[in-house]
């Protein structure tokens, strides 16, 4: 009960014997003219206050209006869907019809609403709700957070949502310096050459004693950079490595030249060569044999069963292929390690080792970083529309490091941390189709300065934080199409997050 309610009870007690008599109580959003709230009570409107000379229902939130419903009283139907606007309860939809194209959502009309709650029994996901990034790479930093209220069942708790129990979390997935390599076999000499260049030994390596280390992704062909204050070592082939590298040049050239991304010159040198055993594995006759008749026995390509099967099946072309993995298998401990090592040594410089042949793109495009809505039909809107949503910034600072794949982290620049909200009305695959929305107070990016570096962690937010972070922007007429999309484009530091919930598109601000 509010203080107002308490005062009204007091009034009821004072005035009841004087004026109410047998009159039944009435619940309505508005009553007759009054000089004080006692007049409202006398007229049977026990829960109304005298506001500007008329009995009215006051409120702070929608729930205050719904709480007026008293089954003991005569109830006006409009009370059941009343909403709180400007601290007074007013009729909501469906009592008040929605404009064309808008639907009634809990007392208010809207063209679109997303609370990330889903429908039915299925556990909702961003993708299942039609939200996600564009392009081919997925942004793992965006997800739905769940207010599991202590009963999380193995799900990471997300803390309270603005409404319901779920909200979307935005983050920016940083680009790696180099990425994760796709590999292919090369000859032992080339593997040794690459290892030697990246990890220069004190003495020239013997072909049978290398490579010693697995190759770590590196942006240059030389020793690792010590720190960002020193210049990166120039690309060079140490004199100790010249022997193995000349042997590399003598290896068989790869039939189809490699055109991988982000390869250094020394990686390219190894990728351009191949050992003689592995190409046989790619021959059609061998592949079909191993995928059908001899699939099971050749799970161990060096086994007698495999060899016997291939002979019986006439897969003679597979013989060289048996040595394709022998050198790498020999590096793993096991009962046959000595045998495999001996067999690898017989292959000499032509043994087979993996080498990077490509570093696929790992840097997400802006479309992939963004959280993008499904198409929204706004073509029926007659007038201007407004996008509203609530957000909570989780300790977002002012600047971020702008990472770029293929360049040293030492050379990465700084940029502002921000989230832009954009819309497009068609051809949304084109970056130019997206237009920045401008919020009511004239800003184009979130969060405002005053909401940064707040120390707030995901799960630590409350309803107060969601009420502070309320954004509202006009949707210009040119963005109101049959397949309008909106998107949240985060440009944040690696671990910075922002929560978004209760997204609405309405004709009334």
């Amino acid at each position: 009960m509010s203080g107002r309610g308490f005062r009204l009870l007091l009034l009821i007690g004072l005035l009841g014997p004087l004026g109410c008599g047998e009159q039944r109580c009435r619940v309505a959003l508005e009553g007759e003219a009054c000089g004080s709230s006692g007049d409202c009570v006398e007229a049977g409107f026990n829960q109304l206050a005298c506001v500007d000379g008329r009995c009215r229902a006051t409120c702070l939130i929608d729930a205050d209006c719904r709480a007026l419903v008293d089954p003991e009283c005569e109830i006006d139907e409009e009370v059941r869907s009343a909403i709180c606007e400007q601290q007074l309860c007013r009729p909501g939809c469906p009592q008040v019809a929605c404009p064309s194209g808008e639907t009634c959502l809990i007392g208010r009309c809207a063209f679109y609403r997303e609370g990330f709650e889903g429908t039915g029994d299925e556990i909702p996901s961003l993708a299942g709700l039609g939200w996600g990034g564009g392009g081919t790479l997925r942004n793992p930093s965006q997800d739905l957070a769940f207010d599991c209220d202590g009963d999380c069942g193995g799900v990471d708790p997300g803390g309270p949502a603005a409404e319901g129990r779920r909200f979307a979390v935005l983050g920016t997935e940083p680009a790696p310096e180099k990425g994760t390599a796709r590999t292919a076999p090369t000859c032992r000499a080339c593997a040794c050459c690459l290892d030697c260049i990246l990890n220069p030994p004190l003495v020239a390596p013997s072909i049978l004693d290398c490579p010693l280390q697995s190759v770590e992704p590196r942006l240059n062909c030389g020793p690792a950079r010590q720190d960002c204050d020193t210049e990166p070592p120039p690309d060079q082939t140490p004199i100790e490595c010249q022997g193995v590298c000349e042997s590399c040049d003598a290896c068989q050239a790869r039939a189809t030249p490699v055109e991988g991304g982000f390869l250094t010159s020394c990686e390219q040198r190894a990728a351009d060569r191949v050992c003689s055993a592995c190409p046989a594995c790619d021959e059609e006759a061998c592949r079909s044999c191993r995928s059908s008749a001899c699939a099971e026995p050749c799970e161990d390509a060096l086994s007698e069963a495999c060899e016997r099967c291939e002979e019986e099946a006439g897969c003679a072309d597979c013989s060289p292929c048996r040595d394709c993995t022998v050198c790498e298998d020999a590096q793993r401990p096991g009962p046959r390690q000595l045998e495999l090592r001996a067999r690898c040594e017989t292959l000499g410089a032509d043994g087979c080792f993996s080498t990077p042949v490509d570093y696929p793109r790992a840097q997400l495009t802006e479309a992939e970083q963004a959280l993008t809505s499904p198409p929204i039909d706004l073509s029926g809107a007659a007038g201007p529309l407004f996008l509203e949503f609530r957000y909570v910034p989780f300790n977002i600072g002012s600047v971020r490091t702008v990472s770029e794949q293929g360049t040293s982290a030492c050379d990465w620049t700084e940029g502002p941390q921000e989230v832009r909200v954009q819309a497009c009305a068609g051809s949304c695959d084109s970056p130019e189709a997206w237009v920045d929305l401008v919020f009511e107070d004239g800003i184009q990016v979130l969060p405002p300065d005053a909401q940064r570096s707040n120390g707030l962690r995901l799960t630590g937010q409350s309803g107060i934080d969601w009420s502070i972070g309320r954004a509202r922007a006009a949707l210009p007429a040119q963005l109101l199409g049959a397949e309008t999309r909106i998107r949240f484009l985060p440009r944040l530091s690696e671990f910075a997050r922002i929560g978004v919930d209760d997204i609405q598109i309405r004709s009334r601000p």
Partner: protein
Amino acid sequence: MRAGLVVVLALAACGESSSLRIEIQRAGESVLDPVSGGATRLRLELVGDSGESAIAEGPADAAFLELEDFPSERFSAVLQAFDPEGNVVGYGRFSQRSLEGEVPRILLRRNLAFVIHQDDPLPGEPGRLVLGIDVVRRTVAARFQVGQAGSVARAVTAWGGRGLLVAEQRGRDGFVGIVDAEDLSYRNIPLDHVPDVVVGPAEAGIGVAAGGGFLSFVDLEAEEVLGAPLVVGGRVLDVAVDPRGRRALLAIDISPPGVVTVDLRRQQAESLPLLPDAAGLAVNPATGVAYATSSSSPRLAAVDLASGRSVQLDGSLSAPGGLASWSSALDGVVTVSEAGPRSTLYGYSVFSQGGLPGASPGFDDVTGVVMDGSGRHGVLVAGGEAGGEPGLTLLRARFGALPETSNTLYPEDPVEGLRYRPRGAAILHGD
């Protein structure tokens, strides 16, 4: 009467009906205007002596509000400024005024928590820095310093809506500092001792400065100290004052007595055995009843500041109490318990005469908890233990429930870019 701060109530005959016209004027400093805090609506509620009430509404920049046919000539008034989300971003009140005699005054002020800081040796002289923090949006809206180089603000309290009272120390000297809520200007009155706290009644009357083993009465209007200080031992932990200027209570760290009651009109002070280890005091401005908490007992006591009578309350908190503040929205007291390893916020409902269920998350080194005039919004400031970060917690109260909290790092000083440790806070409220 200061120009620009007056609300005039005029009762005008108009046929058979009468109307109250209320002119609203604002502080000269725009940052204290609720409009700058996002206010879009004003709501004035009058409550007459017999409980009858009526409301007038208008836009946030309204120059006046009117009520027709209000039946009582003696009433209290509450003026609230709302933002579009229904938050109270400005407040003003007066109580028990009559249309006869002097024109009643009400001051509308933006809901800012004015926070003072520990005297740490950092750039920006944090010891004399005051930040005005929006209690709804957590933004730093105002920044100013008190005193001069070497000054330290030891405590801050609200002098109704008129200003802030600062317990200022400069070396071995003590001062009663007054921050004018009209323009945030600062002036001070020398004292014979260094005060722990200064408190003054919201409506009128004599203020009190206590600390260093002494208690002085101060005419805040005339800006002069009255007589020689009384000897009152102990350090002041919390304070409460009757808005109508009859009594003040001081919770001191010597128990017994724990509480000193100060008769502001007779300028006398005496011990009041109320509770063991009194630690916090809060006053309901509408009733003039003060509530005391204890750091060793979960019980509370109430003191009628008009008569001085006291009573132990039924029910109790979930833990011993501490610093306290009144919330009209909750219709009770919020208090910070230091009983556990970390400080925790608890609530006591006067309506239901019992502690509210639940407890807040833990805080470190709480130095202030204060609710706004409406009782809906408030802040809790925490200095953070050694190595910890100072915190600012927004509070949002509703009837019958422990206030909702939002705990974040204390904001950085917008000039120095440093995060200081808060020492105490006050929010301007009614007349």
